[in-house]
C-alpha cells in the first residue's frame, strides 16, 4: 500500500498493523527516515517537504510495482509525508514482507534508494541561519544506480 499524507504517523503502530496476523511471512524489513536536528548547515528547527500532488502517488506506485517485479514480496507499505515537520518526526516508512530475509532487505533498500531519486519531493530546512533547500546528493544517485539492470539506459 502507498500512502502520501501530511498527517504525522507512528512507525511502531504502522509496523504492528503491517505484521499483524501474518503466518506466511518469514521476515519484515523496514526503514524509517526521521527529521534530523543536526546538519552541516546549523541546527535544523523544522523541515518542509514540498511535493507534486498526483505525480508523487504515481511515482510511488511505479516504484512499488518495480520492487514487486524484482523480488517475490508478500506485502509492501510505503508512507511518505509532506508538509512541515520537526526534528524526530518520521518522514517516510518503508516496510517489506517476504518469505526470505535477503529479498526483504534488498527490496527495502531499493525502495529507499528509488524514493530518494525518483519521488518528486523537495526539502526546505529552517535552520538557525535561515531557510535552505536541501540539495540532491550525488551519493543518492550512486545508490540508485546500483539497482540498474543490464540493458537499462
Amino acid at each position: 500500500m502507498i500512502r502520501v499524507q501530511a498527517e504525522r504517523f507512528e512507525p511502531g503502530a504502522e509496523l504492528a498493523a503491517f505484521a499483524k496476523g501474518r503466518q506466511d511471512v518469514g521476515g519484515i524489513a523496514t526503514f524509517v527516515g526521521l527529521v534530523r536536528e543536526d546538519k552541516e548547515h546549523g541546527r535544523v528547527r523544522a523541515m518542509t517537504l514540498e511535493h507534486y500532488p498526483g505525480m508523487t502517488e504515481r511515482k510511488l506506485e511505479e516504484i512499488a510495482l518495480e520492487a514487486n517485479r524484482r523480488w517475490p514480496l508478500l506485502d509492501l507499505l510505503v508512507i511518505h509525508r509532506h508538509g512541515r515537520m520537526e526534528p524526530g518526526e518520521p518522514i517516510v516508512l518503508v516496510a517489506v514482507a517476504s518469505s526470505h530475509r535477503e529479498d526483504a532487505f534488498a527490496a527495502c533498500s531499493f525502495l529507499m534508494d528509488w524514493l530518494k531519486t525518483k519521488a518528486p519531493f523537495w526539502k526546505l530546512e529552517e535552520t538557525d541561519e535561515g531557510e535552505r533547500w536541501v540539495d540532491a546528493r550525488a551519493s543518492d544517485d550512486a545508490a540508485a544506480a546500483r539497482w540498474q539492470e543490464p540493458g537499462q539506459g
Partner: protein
Amino acid sequence: MKVRYFAWLRQRTGCAEEEVSLPAAVRTVGDLMHWLGERHPRFAEACASAGVVRCAVNQDYVSTDAPVAAGDEVAFFPPVTGG
C-alpha cells in the same frame, strides 16, 4: 498548457502555476524553457546552469528534447530529494 514550478524554482519565478498559450515555434521542452525564460528572467538564469532544472510532462520525467503540446501539464523543478 499548464506550467508548474516547484521548490526554489517556484520561489524564483514567484509563480507556482500558470496557464500559457504556446506559439507554434515551441515544440520541445527546451524550446519551452527558452520561451518561459523571457517571461521569468530568474528562470532563465536557473536554466543556464546545466543539470539544475528538471522537467516532467504529464507527470513523467522527460529530457529537454521531449515534445510538448497544447494540452500538456509541464512541470519544472530542481533535482528531487524524496525519502
